[in-house]
């Protein structure tokens, strides 16, 4: 813990020194940034923008979860379907999806709906891929055990594949939340918002209020971190047996 506190202090001091050297206008000091953050919260602009962003996040990301989990499992269980469709999701996952943003603007406009759709498609592949891999990687041995007890196809699914899948679903949720927050920010930056966090950044950036921009940016990043940690906590609480299994779906897009 001491090392960590020390390293935090070092960064804060470096930030302070940097701001003294570069000037408050270019790099506002930590104190200025925090007080500006206080202003924004007090004025209610930041909370309002946050609510708008989180709405899009909840609807777009929630829809991705609702669609992605069953879709991933179905693709994993039905091998033929999986072979036919899995590469769409890995392609969506590895490609720079933000390139689609201008297209979405043409199709869906620039309001909250367009951003929700963007977040949906941004988050979906992550969730499908992890659930797909989970269902597909159910060890044959476990399925054989179930078969040897004359389990029906339905029982094999409900009592073997699905329980095996649970930790993967949580991994999908955790990674999906991160993805969705990133999607939200990209959507707000690219699908020209007239409200929301991205809009705040644009407006304050235009008026050269860098302390405000910094406050908003750091706040958004903090949200992303806290969200990931929260889901991790939830996961530890609900699926404690998963410790030690490597399901952190990194590099799963290949």
């Amino acid at each position, binding site marked *: 813990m001491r090392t960590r506190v020390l390293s935090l202090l070092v960064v804060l001091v470096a930030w302070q020194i940097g701001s003294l050297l570069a000037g408050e206008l270019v790099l506002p000091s930590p104190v200025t940034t925090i007080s500006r953050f206080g202003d924004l919260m007090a004025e209610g602009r930041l909370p309002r923008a946050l609510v708008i962003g989180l709405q899009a996040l909840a609807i777009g990301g929630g829809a991705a979860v609702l669609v992605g989990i069953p879709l991933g499992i179905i693709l994993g269980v039905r091998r033929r379907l999986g072979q036919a469709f899995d590469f769409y999701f890995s392609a969506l996952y590895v490609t720079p999806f933000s390139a689609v943003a201008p297209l979405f603007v043409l199709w869906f406009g620039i309001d909250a709906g367009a951003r929700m759709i963007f977040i949906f498609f941004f988050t979906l592949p992550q969730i499908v891929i992890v659930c797909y891999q989970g269902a597909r990687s159910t060890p044959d041995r476990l399925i054989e055990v179930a078969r040897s007890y004359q389990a029906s196809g339905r029982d094999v699914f409900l009592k073997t594949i699905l329980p095996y899948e649970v930790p993967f679903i949580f991994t999908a949720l955790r990674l999906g939340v991160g993805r969705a927050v990133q999607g939200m920010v990209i959507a707000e930056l690219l699908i020209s918002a007239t409200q929301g966090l991205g809009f705040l950044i644009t407006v304050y950036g235009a008026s050269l209020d860098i302390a405000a921009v910094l406050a908003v940016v750091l706040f958004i990043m903090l949200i992303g971190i806290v969200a*990931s*940690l929260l889901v*991790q906590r939830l996961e530890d609480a609900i699926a404690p047996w*998963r*410790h*030690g*299994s*490597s*399901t*952190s779906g990194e590099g799963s897009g290949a």
Partner: protein
Amino acid sequence: MPERPIKLAVEGLHKTYRTKRPRDTFLRRLLPDLNSETTEVVAIEDLTFDIRAGEFVSIVGPSGCGKTTALRIMDALVPHDGGRVLINGTEVTEPRPECGFVFQDFGLYPWRTVTANVAFGLELRGVAPSERRERARQYINLVGLKGFESHYPHQLSGGMQQRVGIARTLAIEPEILLMDEPFGSLDALTRRIMQFELLRILESQRPTTVVFVTHDLEEALLLSDRILVMTRRPGRCKEIIDIPFDRPRTDAVVDSPEFLELRRHLWESLREEQVGVTDETEARAS
């Protein structure tokens, strides 16, 4: 057995084994597969014995009695808490050049070919490349792997991998060979073949002193001059049995009545200890 000098002495060895789970760091919370380090408590208490030059001594004992730990302590791979290990009369504080260790899971480097694996120890000792290739070739031939010099470990069967492991250790020409269940992960047939191979190889390398940890009683009987039986945890020396068979040993030894008699004695001696362990494990599990 004629009186030969004491090669390796273990005096009143103590070991208390605690593996603390490392505190969670943020990175490890995110990468759960790095998070699993098992907690295990193994203890050795007052273990004492001598091994004379050129002797082949096996250590057997119930699961978890600390026989592997004891072997590791002899090469200072694991620290100990009390007592001492002497090799050629001096206390062991770090891995000794006189010792060569053979690991149960082979411990081959997957990125090195057979030759490069066998040459590993020589390389660390600064032997010139041409000479270490030559010596590696010699030991690869000795263990019967001629023709596989440039294979990678994953291209070899388990038995062949352990042949590489043995060649790698012999290549540094150790006076003492410490072998930790070297054939434990092989199938029964391969294991038997490897046992006779080891006997053959050692005939050509004598006098090499060997300490051999195993849980296979027949293996211990077939290979050893003496067998040390350890008690259940905390591990101590329960008894030391002399094995009278002449060398070189053949298949016939296994079928002799003496062999069967010794095996029964060993088995009973071990069962007493193992029963206690089993009870303990079950008690802890419930």
